[in-house]
Every structure is written in C-alpha cells, then in structure tokens.
C-alpha cells in the first residue's frame, strides 16, 4: 500500500500547489489562535477553507483542519466554532490536541473524524489506546521523540492509524509540553499557536556577524558566509558549564526521506511534512519529491536521490529521534 503524503498549506495558493503536486492529503488551519501556526499573513478564512476543500476534493485529495492549540479559559467558544466550521466546510478530519476539545468534538460532532495532534505528544501505546477508546480518535500523529523500532512496537499494540513527520522543522522537545517560547516572549505554541514569534525577533548586522535575538535573548550570531537559521529558542547557541554549543539541537531540520521504507515496514499509515509557514514553491517541491519516493517504495523501486537540502533550515538534515543515538 502507498504511504499517504500529508502536506502543509499556509495559504489557499499553497493548498492548490500541493494538490497539483500530488499530495494525497493537505492540512491547514483557520487564521486565528486555534491552530499551531498562527503566523502573520498565514492561514484560511472561513470561505477560503470551504473553497480550498472543494478544490482538493474535486481532484481526489483530502483536507485535514488543525485545531490544535489549547483553548483559552473563558474563550472555548472560539475553538468550538472552529470545529463546527471545519465540519461545515467539508473537512475530512480535524486534528485536535486538547482533551476538553476532543470530548466536545466526540459529543457534538460525532460524524467528524478526529485525529490526535502531535501537540498531544502521545508517545506510547497505552495512551494512544486510551485516546482511541475514550474519544474515538482514528489517527495519531506521533511525537518526534520515538525511534523507528519504537514506532513499530507501538503500531503492533494499537488499532488506530499513525502519522509521522518526515520533513521540515524539528521540535526537540516533546510537542505541546514546551513553554520556552512564552518564557522568553509571552507567546507559546499551546496558548497562541506560535513558537519563537516573529514579532519578538530582531536581526541586527553587527561587526562580528548577523545577530538574531528573541525577546532580547541572543539566540545566535552567524558570520557573513554562514547559513542563517531562524532564531528558534531550542536551536540557539548557548553556554552551559564551560562549553558553548548548540545546547539543545543544531540548527537543522528533519529529513527522514531515506527512512521511508523502514517507516512503511513499521506500519505507519501517513508521512507528514512540516511547514505551513513555507511558500507554495517549497510545498510543491517537497510534495513532488516525497510523492515520487512513496510511489517508488510502493512499487518496490529504489528511492530517488534526495534533492531537498537547499530548502532546509541550516541547509542540513537530521533523521532526529528516528535513530536512537539522537537522544
């Protein structure tokens, strides 16, 4: 069976580009704090969502709507409305992280398929079975802390589908369990749908290179000819003990392209590409690449050579936690 490519779209134009490039499934969100890529100029209005879903359905692609931040106390109606509007727009599923929201969706929108967001960081079969039994979740997006053998072991003990990240930005921390960003800036993935928000980023050309600061904290400085990663907190250069280094993670991004055959064997249903903040040109290139790769694997052909390094942050790729030595 061919692995399903689940592709990001931050704008209607990116959604159309992804569909045309061969994405089986597209995920996107509404233009507000209900989704975890609440960035300036991104995401979908209600009408845009309905049009985007119609465009995808007409060409045989599915659309998942991410409503994967944690609703704010006193304002849950915004998230409840997002679920209702996703259903009305014809979404094939909603991607949720919050328990209260899962319970709400299961009760009030039983016909709307539910996926568990990576933001819930469900990292073992006990908790996945719990989500499946309690909220009738049909698919779980696995957190980026697991190795391939661990994913295989999980799939052997659960009945629901799993989706794993194969390309793009890499969370080093367990997703949905991190408030580094709000500590430095006041805005977090869980509450505001942003990490290391652009509004708190300042670049400045200084004598010793380009400095990137977030909330006043220097995240890194790079020399004139070095690649310049975005100042994501967990990929900064810091000093701990007597060592100055990328304390948490190098400024790299995930590229598990070469692991696709192993992920297929591990029983994974879908491969997810990160990057709703990236351009339609990026989306099209990455989708074409991965579609060719999964088609090759399904037909028993060798993987086409990778071509994606230039698109990556820091222009280098890692297979992240999929290889156990990453830990």
């Amino acid at each position, binding site marked *: 069976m061919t692995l399903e490519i689940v592709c990001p779209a931050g704008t209607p134009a990116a959604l159309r580009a992804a569909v045309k490039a061969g994405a089986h499934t597209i995920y996107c969100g509404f233009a507000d704090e209900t989704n975890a890529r609440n960035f300036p100029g991104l995401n979908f209005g209600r009408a845009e969502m309905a049009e985007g879903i119609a465009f995808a359905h007409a060409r045989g692609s599915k659309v998942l709507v991410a409503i994967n931040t944690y609703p704010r106390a006193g304002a849950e109606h915004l998230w409840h409305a997002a679920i209702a509007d996703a259903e009305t727009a014809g979404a094939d599923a909603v991607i949720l992280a919050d328990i209260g929201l899962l319970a709400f969706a299961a009760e009030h929108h039983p016909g709307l398929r539910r996926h568990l967001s990576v933001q819930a960081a469900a*990292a073992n079969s*006990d908790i996945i079975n719990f989500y499946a039994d309690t909220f009738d979740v049909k698919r779980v997006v696995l957190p980026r802390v697991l190795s391939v053998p661990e994913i295989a072991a999980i799939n052997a003990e659960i009945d629901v589908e799993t989706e794993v990240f194969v390309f793009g930005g890499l969370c080093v921390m367990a997703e949905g369990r991190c*408030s580094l960003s709000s500590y430095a800036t006041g805005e977090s993935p869980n509450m505001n749908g942003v990490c290391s928000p652009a509004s708190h980023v300042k670049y400045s050309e200084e004598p010793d290179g380009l400095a990137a600061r977030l909330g006043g904290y220097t995240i890194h*400085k790079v020399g004139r000819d070095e690649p310049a990663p975005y100042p994501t907190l967990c990929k900064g250069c810091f000093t701990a003990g007597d060592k100055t280094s990328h304390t948490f993670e190098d400024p790299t991004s995930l590229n598990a392209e070469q692991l696709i055959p192993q992920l297929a064997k591990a029983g994974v249903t879908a491969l997810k590409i990160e990057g709703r903040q990236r351009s339609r040109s990026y989306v099209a290139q990455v989708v074409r690449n991965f579609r060719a790769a999964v088609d090759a694997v399904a037909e028993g052909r060798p993987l086409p050579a990778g071509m994606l390094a230039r698109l990556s942050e820091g222009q280098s790729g890692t297979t992240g936690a999929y290889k156990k030595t990453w830990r």
Partner: protein
Amino acid sequence: MDLTIGPNQFFWDADTWAGFYGEMADSAALRVVLGELVCSKRLPFYQDRIPAAVETLLDAGKTVALTSLALVTLKRERKLTADLGAMGVPVEINDLTALSHVPDGAEFWVGPLVNVYNEGTFRWLASRGATRICLPPELPLSSVQVLAALGAELGVAVEVWGFGRLPLAISGRCYHARLHGRTKDNCQFACEDDPDGLSVVTTDGQPFLAMNGVQTLSDSTASLVRKVEELRDAGVSALRLSPQTGAFGSVVAAYRGVLDGSVSPDDAARVLAALAPGGRLSDGFLTGARGADWSGVAV
C-alpha cells in the same frame, strides 16, 4: 491557602533525597508529592527509600501522593507507570499515560505538566476522578481565575506553581548527556553534578535557562510570593513549592509567613532571592509580559 511540596525535579543521591523528606516532615507544608518526575534512569538509585519517606511524611500528618514520570515512552516506564497505584497513596499524573492506568472513578491528582488550560479539560478530568489539579505554570491570572472558580464549583482543589525553577520543557533527548558528548543510554548520570540544574547562558552572558537531563528549566526561580492576594481572591487553594538544595525549610517558612500575614511579600522575596540558584526571581507568567519577568524590584 496552604502549601504543597512538589516532586523533586533533580537527581540527588539517596541520602540527600531521604534527608530532604525527613526535613519536610517537620515543615509547614500540608502535603508532599514525591517520586521520579524527570528520568526513569534515576529511580533505581533511591527507589527503595521511597516507602520509608512516605511513611515518615504520613506519620507527620502530611498528605502524600506519588508522581508519574513526565514523559513515558519505554516499556519499563509503562510498567512503572502502571504500578504507581500499588503504593496506596493517590497518584499525581504528570503524563496522561498514568491516567490510562487509574481505575475509573478512583481519586487522582493532576500535576503541572498535564495541559489543563480550560474549563472543558478541567471538567473532564474532574469527571474522571481528579480531586486536585496543579495548573500549568504558563497560565496567566485570567485563566487561573476562571479555573479556580470552576474548581470551587466542582469541589476540585486548584494549585499553582508557587516556587522553583520552571519546568519549561521535556524531551526524548538528554541535554546533560549531549553536553558531555554521550548518548542518553550511556549518560553516566552527568546530571548528578547539578543538583539544581545547570545554567544555560546566552553568548552575550545573559542567564536564560537551566538543563536538567531531559528537562529544560528556567534560569530564574519562579515565585508567586508577591501574588498571594490575587491568587487567594481567585480561589486558589495551594501554592506548590518545588524542591531545591539549600535551606528549603526557610523557603517553606517564608511562604507560610506570607500566607499568615506575618512576613511582607517583599521581605519574603528578599529571602527567597538569596536562596534561589543565581539569585533571580520571576513571576511573569501570571501577570507579566512574559514568563521571565519579575514584578518586584531587582534584588
């Protein structure tokens, strides 16, 4: 309002660990959560001391709960989590995996590492048997007010993070091991050298975070000692104090003094800053522009 001692986040040797709970038996805190929160590899070093510590605390009249791990992935960790109930005290779940092992309707507590951001989640946990919920540290006062009011309505005690380096993130990767060029499986327990965590400083020399194995903490020590009035008005029933080395009895005493009105918040803040690793306090998550901010004068 009263005081809860949260689970120790750091790797202490067994004697230090046991000594700490002996001391807490005589403290002004009403309840204690103990056990391993951060890394299952640390547990064998002091596991056999847990029953005696629980007994000492119960004998001293404290209410005791046992914490789950913050991130459960390995088979051994799942087994450990499933067995938590056997100690005969309530389990504090800090990863929802633990909830999947709590019998339907049985009492449990919810720790600050479970994402309780709103009424829907709060109600759902209460309906499953939660009797005490410590809210995530990043919640602003407006959310705390809504949830504490709901807690009062549902009979669930609401706690907030009152003191200690903030648990900002948990990972599959061990940063102490990475710092020493080792993998997690061969970490050689590098985190034991840093009983309050290891400071992470920017290249401009600004203190920022602290590493503690697979956990990332704030550099600053959070303290809501200047926010007691607002929290009391909101209906928060307890402040959680997170263990650190040094005179922790003085930390507990300072908070008890503020709750009783016998010590002014600013006087207490001066005492706490002197005891905090690095001497920096923060309370920005509750009322500031960001978590790292401190509402008081720089001390």
